């Protein structure tokens, strides 16, 4: 339906700016090469002026839609970041930076957030982007018919959004809301293209128009999404002429495609990452990017009393102590990853004292080498005794035998669960493993129909994102799969939302972190590192915990390498 004439027409239209781009590039090349020879350490302005080239980035899954509000799967968000602008964004170190909003201020009572938009910004179709588009985007997010599940959370505390003039947006919250600013990392929609159409099936959903550094050119279903430089971008033209997302479902194929020169970025499988780093031929053709994503793996112990094991914190602590995360990261992950001892890893400053009067958690050192002796003592104290005849631990005749659900498609899940199985056997506990596909695992997690389950969590850049995993309101319908219920933790999360002072807010999260270390509703496990190769034909790739595209400037800063073709 979409691939016939319209595709060809789009391709024809796309040629025009390309020709322009080529002319501009030619002019720039001429300007920079006349006279002096390019110096090794060239000035930033000169480097930024060098632009051109086509960067191909593999996507494992095709976006469901490029409707900025409903498309919140990882693939859609990656494309939307390039095509559209959000009011604010974060840099590679996860600090808030301005984007479509040049500046903002927060009222002294913390309830009103006022954005001042950049003047003269236009959508790719030439229509001006104003505060009315921001209000429209917010309205669509709040409209239940949009199914904007992935976007709605930061806007639930919003009372109203107003546009007093074309470049000002005033957001009023019902009460002070500390994570408010980061909530506006949402791409702004072109209201004029959506008004009067069916939101779910509007043409712009598959041919998006934004204000971002790259213009949409074409979407060939199942094959690729092609973007071209927006030469009128408010921050200047991006360093690349074209950005292509190639749909490559197999991770191994993506890596081979990098080696074959068909894509310019790909993850390197952990098994070969170490040898690749020393291969001179590889180093000549690719630069290496490393980062540890915010994502981490955990085991949720269902602690609501539906099983005889995990309602007791001593049992959860004992099991956490017996599992050898460090050994797993060292051997199976070849050291390419981090042991996770706190869910707030990377979201709080590394050093920070507990508020005076709080006692540090007893089992805080869970991530260290396994401590089977202490674990056994804890289990004994909880009534789980090893019979003198050997065999499994028992309490009141019940043997300690439980089932762990894992995701069958995740190598880490399958391998780690086998390692943990051995660790627990030494403690007199039998853990059986049930492998499920993703939807089946999630639906079991959401219905609470499990004893223990391995899963993963992707926190946002703000510590408040742990609310979904730990607040008791999230047991039914949210992501608090362990059914963890602690009135103090609940109160601290809500207080932190109302606390605008950074230090005071961090102190609250420290308290939560400490309580979690004592209660251990989840066993926090490990975060695998990502090692990726970037074609040496390009430079400017910067890793963040969200990859080379998931930050500002991200893809905007990519450009042809000096001396490259």
């Amino acid at each position, binding site marked *: *339906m*979409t*691939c016939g004439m319209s595709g060809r027409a789009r*391709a024809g239209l796309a040629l025009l700016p390309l020709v322009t781009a080529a002319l501009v590039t030619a002019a720039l090349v001429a300007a920079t090469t006349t006279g002096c020879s390019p110096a090794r350490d060239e000035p930033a302005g000169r480097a930024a002026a060098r632009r051109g080239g086509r960067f191909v980035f593999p996507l494992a*899954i*095709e976006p*469901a*839609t490029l409707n900025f509000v409903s498309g*919140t*799967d*990882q693939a859609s968000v990656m494309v939307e970041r390039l095509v559209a602008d959000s009011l604010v964004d974060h840099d590679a170190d996860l600090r808030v930076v301005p984007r479509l909003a040049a500046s903002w201020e927060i009222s002294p009572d913390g309830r009103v957030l006022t954005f001042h938009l950049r003047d003269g910004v236009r959508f790719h179709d030439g229509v001006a982007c104003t505060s009315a588009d921001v209000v429209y985007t917010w309205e669509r997010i709040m409209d*239940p*018919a949009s*199914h904007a*599940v*992935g976007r*709605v*959370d930061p806007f*639930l505390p919003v009372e109203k959004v107003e546009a007093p003039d074309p470049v000002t947006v005033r957001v009023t919250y019902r009460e002070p809301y500390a994570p408010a600013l980061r909530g506006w990392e949402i791409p702004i929609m072109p209201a004029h293209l959506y008004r009067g159409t069916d939101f*779910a*099936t509007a043409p712009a*959903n598959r041919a998006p128009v934004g204000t971002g550094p790259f213009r949409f050119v074409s979407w*060939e*279903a*199942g*094959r*690729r999404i092609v973007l071209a430089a927006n030469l009128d971008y408010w921050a200047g033209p991006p360093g690349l002429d074209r950005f292509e997302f*190639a*749909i*490559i*479902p*197999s991770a*191994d*194929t993506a890596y*081979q*495609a990098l*080696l*074959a*020169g*068909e894509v310019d970025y790909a993850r390197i499988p952990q098994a070969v990452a170490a040898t690749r780093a020393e291969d001179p031929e590889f180093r000549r053709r690719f630069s290496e990017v490393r980062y540890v994503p915010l994502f981490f793996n955990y085991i949720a112990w269902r602690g609501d009393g539906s099983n005889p094991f995990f309602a007791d914190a001593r049992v959860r602590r004992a099991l956490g102590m017996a599992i050898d995360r460090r050994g797993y990261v060292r051997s199976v992950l070849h050291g390419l990853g981090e042991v996770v001892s706190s869910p707030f890893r990377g979201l709080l400053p590394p050093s920070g004292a507990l508020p005076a009067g709080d006692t540090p958690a007893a089992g805080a050192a869970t991530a260290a080498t396994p401590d089977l002796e202490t674990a056994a003592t804890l289990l004994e104290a909880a009534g789980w005794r090893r019979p003198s005849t050997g065999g499994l631990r028992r309490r009141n005749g019940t043997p300690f035998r439980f089932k762990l659900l894992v995701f069958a498609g995740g190598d880490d899940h399958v391998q780690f669960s086998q390692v943990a199985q051995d660790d627990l056997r030494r403690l007199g506990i039998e853990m059986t493993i049930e492998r*499920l*596909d*993703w*939807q*089946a695992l*999630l*639906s*079991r997690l*959401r*219905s609470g129909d499990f004893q223990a389950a391995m899963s993963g969590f*992707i926190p*946002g850049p703000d510590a408040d*994102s742990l609310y*979904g995993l730990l607040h008791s*309101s*999230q047991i*039914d*319908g*949210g*992501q608090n799969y362990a059914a963890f219920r602690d009135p103090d933790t609940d109160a601290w999360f809500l207080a932190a939302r109302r606390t605008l002072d950074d230090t005071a807010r961090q102190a609250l999260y420290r308290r939560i972190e400490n309580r979690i270390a004592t209660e251990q509703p989840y066993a926090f496990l490990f975060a695998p590192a990502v090692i990726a190769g970037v074609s040496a034909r390009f430079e400017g790739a910067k890793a963040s915990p969200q990859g080379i595209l998931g930050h500002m400037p991200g893809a905007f800063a990519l450009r042809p390498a000096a001396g490259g073709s």
Partner: protein
Amino acid sequence: MTGYILRRALVTLPTLLGITLVAFAILNLLPTDPLLTWSDGTAPLSAEAASRLRDALQPDSGPVTRYATWLFGLLRFDLGRSLRDGRPVTAVLAEALPWTLVLNLSALAAIYAVGLPLGWIGARRRGGAAAAGRALLLILSVVPPFAAALLLQRLLAVRLGLLPLQGTGAGDAPGVAAGVDLLRHLVLPTTCLALAGWAYAARYARAAFRAILAPEALAAARARGLHGISLARHFAPNSALPFVWMVAGIVPALVSGSVVIEAIFSWPGLGQVLLRGVEGRDYPLVMALMLLSAVTVLAGQLVADLVLPAIDPRLRDLVARDENVRG
């Protein structure tokens, strides 16, 4: 004859219905939560967002109602909309179908192009190169397609750079160049898909040629002065029959094999749509695919039933007798 066709077509209807019912039952037995389909399974869902979505979605009607709705839509040739992106299922399938057809037809052509000559040579001569070739094909046929794919990708695309590794080509090249580009991208997936079929085709063709080209028959034909092309023309109609039947042995294997091959070679065909559909519990999409494959198989049988009597006089008599019996 028309009555025969009509009756055959009517008989397939209950079969079709049964297939859709089984497919629907299997899909509904898989554990899922409609919210997960809508949020693509990845979005961070808070309890508040989840309850808002639950309210916005139609109240989850039971499986019986859903099946009835689906079936009723089918009567109006409406296959529904994909749950993932809200587009009509027919549009999603129309994008992927040509790619699957191209890949499978080229694999079929490759199987015949290699299998028939080898079978012919094998039928004419004993031992020697042909036997060695068949033995090699037999060994190749037990190599799993994904393993063959990985080996060929590493050798021909990465190491030697002779062929594209994956994908379908840029598609923005003009005319002939685009065609050549597509053909180059077809080589590796076609080879991997044809791999398992070659040995089968060669053995099948050898047996078929042996039966047709029995020395007595050949000698008799030669004695009547036939040679070269006229000899081939004499034997062609007779020999066509087993090779039409051979398709039936190859196609089902191709279709299931192409799901794996499509994923490895980033080929945007129906196999990928199916994988995505099952993972996302996108049941209108999966049901449509089940229906499509069922219709294809049944239509294939129907066509065979019509074509074979046209070639084979013995079958023609059978149909005629059937017509007479039923009046």
